[in-house]
């Protein structure tokens, strides 16, 4: 028999949630306590009421509203793939756009710089050949004004390629004349000399395989780098560059820095204008 009113335990007693022994003790107390019996009656009444608490269902329309933000929409396979690859594709497109912008707007397609290093063997030989060209002592193994024939001859004999356009602008006929070509025995290097005239001024172009030339200018990937040297002994303009596995040296006494010599291969107006604008620095 317990003497303290078990008010706080009456709910648990009603729901049979008390340990058995405690339940018996509370039952014993209740049999002799009208106040606690009245409280228990209140609890039983409230429990009957609470059982009437309505269970609710989410209305269908509201369920859809609830569900929409919770459950991710099923993406189609194409959409999933697109979503998966979209960042990569966007990055690639951005890189391509940047590349295109750089290529056309920023890149310098041609740079002409004053050579800082001493002349290499190909340059020295080109100057010597130009002197012979001027003196008329250079014997041409192939004497021709036909660019295609000269190109084929060089390719077959020395494996060297000359970028000579087949058709030249009509205005070239007034001042441009191709003379011929010869192979050069240059320290076991496969080299060739091409002679031509611009406005009656001799121009000498010497070319050799890049791998065989010591200290040749390096090939530039996205822009052409040309090195200029003012030859002291004769006052020649010497231009040297490398492209597509060949080293080139151009010697002339043409005006400015001898850039008109490049017009042998560069025949478009835009390219010639660009070449003319350059200044060796």
């Amino acid at each position, binding site marked *: 028999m317990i003497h303290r009113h078990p*008010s*706080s*335990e*009456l*709910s*648990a007693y*009603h*729901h049979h*949630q*008390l340990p058995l022994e405690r339940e018996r003790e509370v039952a014993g107390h209740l049999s002799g306590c009208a106040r606690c019996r009245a*409280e228990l009656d*209140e*609890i039983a*009444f*409230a*429990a*009957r*009421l*609470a*059982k*009437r*608490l*309505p*269970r*609710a*269902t*989410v209305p269908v329309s*509201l*369920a859809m*509203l*609830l*569900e929409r*933000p*919770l*459950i*991710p*929409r*099923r993406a189609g396979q194409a959409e999933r793939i697109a979503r998966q690859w979209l960042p990569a594709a966007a990055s690639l497109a951005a890189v391509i756009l940047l590349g295109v912008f750089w290529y056309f707007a920023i890149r310098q397609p041609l740079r002409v710089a004053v050579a800082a290093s001493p002349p290499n063997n190909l340059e020295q030989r080109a100057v010597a050949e130009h002197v012979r060209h001027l003196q008329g002592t250079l014997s041409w193994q192939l004497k021709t004004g036909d660019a295609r024939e000269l190109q084929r001859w060089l390719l077959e004999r020395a494996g060297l390629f000359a970028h000579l356009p087949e058709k030249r602008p009509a205005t070239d006929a007034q001042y441009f004349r191709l003379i011929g070509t010869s192979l050069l025995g240059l320290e076991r290097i496969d080299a060739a000399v091409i002679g031509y005239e611009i406005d009656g001024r001799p121009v000498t172009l010497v070319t050799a395989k890049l791998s065989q030339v010591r200290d040749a200018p390096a090939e530039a990937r996205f822009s052409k780098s040309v090195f200029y040297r003012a030859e002291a002994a004769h006052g020649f303009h010497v231009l040297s560059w490398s492209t597509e596995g060949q080293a080139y040296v151009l010697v002339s006494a043409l005006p400015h820095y001898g850039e008109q010599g490049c017009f042998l291969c560069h025949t478009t107006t835009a390219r010639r204008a660009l070449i003319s604008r350059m200044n060796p620095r």
Partner: protein
Amino acid sequence: MAAKIAEESSAIARPGWVMTQGSGLAAALPPGLINACRKGEREALRVLFELYKDGVFSIALNFSGNKSLALDICQDVFLKLISTLHSLRDEANFRPWLCRLVVNSCMDAHRQARRFVAEAEDEVKKIDSAASPEDAAQQQQLGLEVRSQVARLAPHLRIPILLRYVEGLSYEEIGRVLGCSMGTVASRLSRSHKLLARRLSYLRGVI
């Protein structure tokens, strides 16, 4: 009627998932559902929502007495559920874990709203104690009246009542959900019962 709808909705078979027995938060989890939800499988998330939406909504509505607030709580519960499902280590603890989420969301909503307007949407009429208790409309009205009085209890007294009568949890389970002892649960339930009995004493002739 509501119970019938609940039964029907729990009997809906979704492709790939077999709805199991039980209703409200006591609905049993189909095997593998939690793992599929963790992987973000849409169908699994939909089944989970279908299974527990009414149970969550019932507690939220009886707690707040306000339908729109109950929907907000419901949405909050499911958002938390989806985002924190990875933290549930043992699937056997899913029910108390979900109950805790519901209780926390209810308490958060209560703190934000400070004061719920009980039964703002449903018109609660005083029941005529002389009318027949068998009257369906009267029964429905009785339920709404009880809900309105429950919604006026202090939250710490209201929650145990809802877990006991809406979810049918034992005192021990309620204690585990609320993080308190069985004695505390018993004490709170005794107080809430007495308050309810006094506030609804005029219904003594009805039930």
